[in-house]
């Protein structure tokens, strides 16, 4: 693995976990628009071409108790290698092989000297879009917040 050594004391891999999560959860089209220029200039070879499979999602009884199998979700994964030898992985919800390919490419590039550029041109816009979408949904939900009043049952 070619994890760039960082001086941070944050849990190891925390940064990479964050960008991989962002890449997996972003809209495929948005990522494609941002990653297309990089994809043309950074050729790669496959270690594992994109494959679609199922992941069994688990829950917990009562939300906190015994784990149980809830049901599966579709996931696409792939691994690729840049010309310099850096390896990128992707595990992405759904069956979009292009989405997985772009995610793995960005994962690889984030471990190279291009990291700062990629962060600014790809990750930052994705992060901003995700935060906006989340905030909009949350504030829409907040408009439906309700205060119930218990009616007094008077006898007299």
């Amino acid at each position, binding site marked *: *693995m070619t994890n760039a050594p960082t001086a941070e004391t944050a849990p*190891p*891999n925390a940064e*990479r*976990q964050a960008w*991989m*999560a962002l890449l*997996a*959860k972003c809209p495929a089209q948005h990522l494609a628009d941002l990653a297309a220029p990089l994809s043309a200039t950074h050729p790669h070879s496959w270690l594992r071409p994109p*494959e*679609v*499979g*199922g*992941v*069994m*999602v*688990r*829950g*917990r*009884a*009562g*939300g*906190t*108790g*015994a*784990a*149980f*199998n*809830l*049901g*599966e*979700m*579709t*996931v696409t*994964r792939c*691994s690729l290698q840049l010309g310099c030898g850096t390896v990128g*992985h992707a*595990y*992405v*919800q*759904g*069956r979009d092989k292009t989405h997985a390919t772009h995610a793995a490419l960005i994962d690889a590039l984030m471990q190279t000297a291009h990291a700062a550029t990629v962060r600014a041109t790809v990750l930052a816009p994705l992060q901003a879009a995700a935060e906006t979408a*989340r*905030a*909009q*949904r*949350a*504030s*829409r*939900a*907040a*408009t*439906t*917040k*309700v*205060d*119930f009043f*218990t009616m007094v049952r008077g006898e007299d």
Partner: protein
Amino acid sequence: MYVAVKGGERAIDNAHDWLADERRGPRDIAELSIAQIRHQLALAVNRVMAEGSLYDPDLAALAIKQARGDLIEAIFLIRAYRTTLPRIGHSHPVDTGAMACDRRISATFKDLPGGQVLGPTFDYTHRLLDFKLLAEGPTAEAGNSGATQGMPAPAPMPRVSDFLNRDGLIQDEQPGPQTPPDMTRQPMEYPADRPLRLQALSRGDEGFVLGMAYSTQRGYGRNHPFVGELRIGSVAVEMDIPELGFAVEIGEITLTECETVNQFTGSKTEPAQFTRGYGLVFGQTERKAISMALVDRALRWEELGEDNMGAPAQDAEFVLSHADNIQATGFLEHIKLPHYVDFQSELELVRKLRAEASTPLSEAAE
């Protein structure tokens, strides 16, 4: 014994061509797109994902289109597709406490931390047909984004059961085995433990689980449920990535979770406590999640030291082996397929019995 038939290829092909034609309908009416089904028939899509036991809204929408809106047929298509997928792994148990809630209500506490959030609900509608939807015209502008400006950030929404539990008023959830049983990998076994029951209920037929839940409310295994909390929203799905050696979030799914607060257990040594039922289902599927929680609670009679009243909803084998609509419809619908040889033998048997019944006297006289 079933004996296969052959022949009829041409008729079958023609029937399937006609099916495709009927599916498309009159050509002067615009064809439905998968995106339209996914977004405008979202609750049908959710049901197909939940009972198909595969979270993929596009595939569920495709299945609904292909099945001409027959949801059980669509679920069948999803189940069949599911079996072709290699199993990549399993997720960490999702953290529903950290759900980004679209909806979160409690029927037990009026002023709960985080508040009551109605979300996009049918509740409090008048159930009158809206003829505005019948008139095809320009649709309303999307969203009321103006009204959402300046709203405070959403408050954290702790579980109702957590703050009930702080006073010890509700039973603790017990940890279970590290690897829960998986009915998609091993045949069902009885007695089924709670993780196995929850898996089967979550993918069970909504109508069947609803009927079973309703039976408990009407007195067949009554357990006095309150909806302690119902929440709908998105949660992240995280799994261990073997080639990396750490866990990564691989996506986000919408879930409906229902926790019921039910009547007490207690004994000479332990004070009375509320008990729990639990429902967790893919998508926005609240009728199913509430039903699941009631049936889960009814099936816990033994571990909670309750009497077996002989109610159907207390019988795990009965409930779980009839909850799956694909198993049910497979066995039910197969009886319409050719059984000619099978029936021929029965026909001959009946004729023989009748012949014997009509000749006993003459035989006896010989």
